[in-house]
């Protein structure tokens, strides 16, 4: 069965510092991979997605993620964090079944940004 692990529950960085959020997945085939961000009281907003092709994907708000099949990882990165990036980040794996996808989420990483 597919699963997603986000090892870091809480990360604190200074504004302007670089960021890397870890995500490891378990899935028998090539997965669809997603990163979502959730601000307090809000729904989930898609940051970026990987379906196939280039393993380095660019997303919104200056985020990028790299798919590494050998490590079953899809880590999220940002070279310089802004205070507005403070939020909860969720990695998800999509398993295609017929014409639909089942999305499985990790437990999330809470990002705190200090000025």
């Amino acid at each position, binding site marked *: 069965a597919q699963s*997603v692990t*986000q090892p870091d529950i809480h990360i604190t960085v200074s504004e302007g510092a670089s960021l890397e959020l870890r995500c490891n997945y378990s899935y028998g085939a090539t997965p*669809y991979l*997603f990163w*979502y961000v959730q601000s307090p*009281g*809000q*729904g*989930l*907003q*898609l940051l970026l*997605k990987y*379906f196939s092709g280039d393993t380095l994907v660019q997303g919104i708000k200056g985020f990028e993620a790299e798919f590494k099949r050998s490590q079953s990882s899809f880590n999220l990165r940002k070279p310089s964090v802004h205070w507005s990036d403070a939020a909860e980040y*969720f990695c998800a794996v*999509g398993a*295609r*079944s*017929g*014409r*639909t*996808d*089942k*999305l*499985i*989420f*990790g*437990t*999330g990483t809470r990002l705190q940004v200090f000025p």
Partner: protein
Amino acid sequence: EAGVAQSPRYKIIEKRQSVAFWCNPISGHATLYWYQQILGQGPKLLIQFQNNGVVDDSQLPKDRFSAERLKGVDSTLKIQPAKLEDSAVYLCASSADTGQAFFGQGTRLTVV
């Protein structure tokens, strides 16, 4: 393009009462999901519809939870009777045949 609409945004009920949540997906999206997100956890899939048929309801507590999507558009999720542990945010999402899900803002349920 209008997003996924959910109502109500907040609901407080006593245990053993019933509650219903409503979701209107993005127009044309065949797949609709209901997720439960308990505080401090990631969203957990409760039920997934493809048009008006159920694709996956393996994690839906069927003794108290029910969901329907009769015309393949709007959906309702019901809890009856509610328990304290049902306190969570209930997220609705929809997707077209692209694999990307779009989420509503959720309904925060508090059971007291």
